[in-house]
């Protein structure tokens, strides 16, 4: 194995990994690994490594494994073997080449989608094990460069995309302006204390997809919601630090987010259609702040839209007439079981919903999540090659007539777009918000 690790490590060109590795010594690696294992690797890590029966039953859960023609190096336990087992067996005495490759495996060959967790008979949280590897790599400073850059942005600006405070406010006012051309009395209420809803989005929304804020404002307005967005940092609910293993920064980000909501004395936080941000706010980041559950109720857009339609706050004028299929993002399905609500909204707004297979909790990952797409161009092709199975799944549902994929998650959009483009599938992808905006009754 050592030889193949050397070869694979030699091919790594990512500036973050190569640059970081240049500053490493075996002594430092050993020290950092043992610090992490000792200080953070508790009962879970130990038990998971102790009881794994090496049965390989997790393999078929992983899209990387399936997409690489069942290459065992890409199976979930295979990735754990190449990282965690080796580290523990050698008590941290691994070389620089090994740790370079470990960083690449953990950060770019696993989406932390937790599908394998559902396939392990013992319920071993394999995603947690690979996240621990990312944690070690973070502390060693060899995280892939592109995602590390977003983490830097988080620490400098409290948002993922280097958006400055005035740019954020400006983007909201711009979208409000645009929307008022359509609905003259629409507002995007900034800093409204005592509002019912604190609406938070991810950094890329104001940066690249500002129309999503426009659409959300229209939905909020038509549904008659008492809502607000903060004019200060804390508007961004996304969290790449959770995925680089920078847990201290993750906790700070969640603190800023929750405190902004608390400052505005809102009843609940509604989040835009993003998966990983939901994972961070609902499940992981709150824990880093010692909150068992989020201190303020957090609702994903899927659930929010479901409630609006169920309660008749939004009425559908004319259903979307092209056949759609529904892609369950890992973080809203394995992260919150929102699959039926998502389908409720899809069925309420679209004429035909064709299921892809597998679906719901068992859906294949988009290939982009878990920070993999954020590792940027150096890993774009390995990401696309690593999710061939998803393209096959999409092609099969396309053959049944589906033209549009509903994917209520930003990362999934990125991943699916690349797959569709690469495999020339000619399908389009929409958010639930896109469809609701298109099909809802709006004031004349």
């Amino acid at each position, binding site marked *: 194995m050592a030889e193949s690790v050397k070869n694979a490590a030699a091919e790594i060109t990512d500036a973050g990994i190569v640059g970081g590795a240049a500053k490493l010594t075996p002594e430092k690696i050993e020290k950092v690994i043992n610090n992490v294992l000792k200080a*953070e*690797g*508790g*009962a*879970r890590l*130990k*038990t*998971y490594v*102790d*009881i*794994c*029966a*090496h*049965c*390989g*039953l997790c*393999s*078929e*859960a992983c899209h990387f*494994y399936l997409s690489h023609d*069942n290459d*065992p*190096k890409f*199976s979930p*336990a*295979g990735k754990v*073997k190449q990282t965690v087992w080796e580290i523990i067996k050698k008590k941290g005495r691994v070389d620089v080449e090994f740790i370079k490759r470990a960083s690449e495996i953990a950060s770019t060959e696993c989406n932390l989608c937790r599908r394998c*967790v*559902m*396939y392990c*008979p*013992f*319920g*071993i*949280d394999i995603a947690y094990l690979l996240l621990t590897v990312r944690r070690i790599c973070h502390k060693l400073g060899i995280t892939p460069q592109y995602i590390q850059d977003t983490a830097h942005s988080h620490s400098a600006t409290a948002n993922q995309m280097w958006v400055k405070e005035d740019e954020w406010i400006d983007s909201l006012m711009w979208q409000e302006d645009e929307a008022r051309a359509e609905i003259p009395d629409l507002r995007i209420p900034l800093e409204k204390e005592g509002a019912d809803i604190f609406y938070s989005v991810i950094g890329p929304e104001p940066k690249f997809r500002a129309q999503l804020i426009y659409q959300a404002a229209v939905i909020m307005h038509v549904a008659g919601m008492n809502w607000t967005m903060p004019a200060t940092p804390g508007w961004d609910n996304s969290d790449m630090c959770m995925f680089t293993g920078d847990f201290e920064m993750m906790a700070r980000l969640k603190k800023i987010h929750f405190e902004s909501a608390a400052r505005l004395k809102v009843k609940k936080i509604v989040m835009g259609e993003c998966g990983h941000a939901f994972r961070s706010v*609902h*499940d992981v980041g709150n*824990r880093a702040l010692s909150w*068992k*559950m989020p201190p303020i109720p957090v609702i994903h857009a899927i659930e929010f839209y479901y409630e609006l339609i169920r309660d008749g706050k939004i009425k559908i004028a004319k259903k979307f007439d092209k056949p759609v299929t529904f892609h369950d993002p890992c973080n809203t*399905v*394995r*992260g*919150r*079981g*929102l699959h039926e609500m998502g389908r409720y909204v899809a069925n309420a707004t679209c004429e035909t919903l064709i299921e892809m297979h597998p679906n719901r*909790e*068992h859906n294949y990952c988009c290939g982009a999540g878990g920070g993999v797409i954020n590792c940027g161009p150096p890993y774009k092709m390995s990401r696309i090659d690593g999710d061939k199975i998803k393209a096959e799944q999409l092609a099969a549902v396309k053959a049944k007539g589906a033209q549009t994929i509903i994917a209520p998650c930003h990362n999934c959009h990125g991943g699916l777009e690349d797959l569709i483009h690469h495999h020339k599938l000619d399908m389009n992808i929409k958010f639930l918000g896109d469809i609701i905006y298109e099909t809802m009754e709006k004031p004349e």
Partner: protein
Amino acid sequence: MHDIYDFVSGPMVWVSLIIFAAGCIYRFISMALLAKEKDPFLYNYMSPYHALRSIFHWLTPFGSENMRKNPVFTIVAFSFHICVVIAPLFLFAHIILIKQSWNVSWWFISDTMADIMTLIVIASCVFFLIRRIVRPEVKFLTSASDYIILAMVAAPFITGFWTYHQFAGCRIMGIIHILSGEILLAAIPFTRLSHMIFFPISRGYIGSEFGAIRHAKDW
């Protein structure tokens, strides 16, 4: 022969039972304390309902998606685990020996049944061995210890079968049978076989996370 038999069927039984029981308790308590110290949240997130729900699904044959995807493995794994526990615990000969030593006894299965179960265990071990060698994804994960553990599990059953049927050298086999059983018992808490202790906990915990926090199935 008397001295060897007395030794393996006397003090060695106690030694292996004590290592097994104390080992299990030690592993369990030390893990519980480590969790208390390092991952105290584990206790907060344990949800008995969701834990049991998950354990129930995974203890039901074909109760999970993965089991349905691998029907042969599921059948072998379930029969293996049922037989590996039932056969030795309810074997007539074992009941008699225990009655003799401690004057307690319980229900036993017929010898034919025990024979079938023993063959199932042995055949399962052969299946696991072949699977480990033939399937690339399993072979990749395999180290020497996996073969050793498999041999440790198979040994008491092979020698037990041998002894019962009085094949050549069955006296020596009988001694090896007792010894290998004791070794297996003592090894449980300290090897991957400790999944016997930790399965309900790891399964229950992930069931709680998936069920109570993430409102999703984990099977």
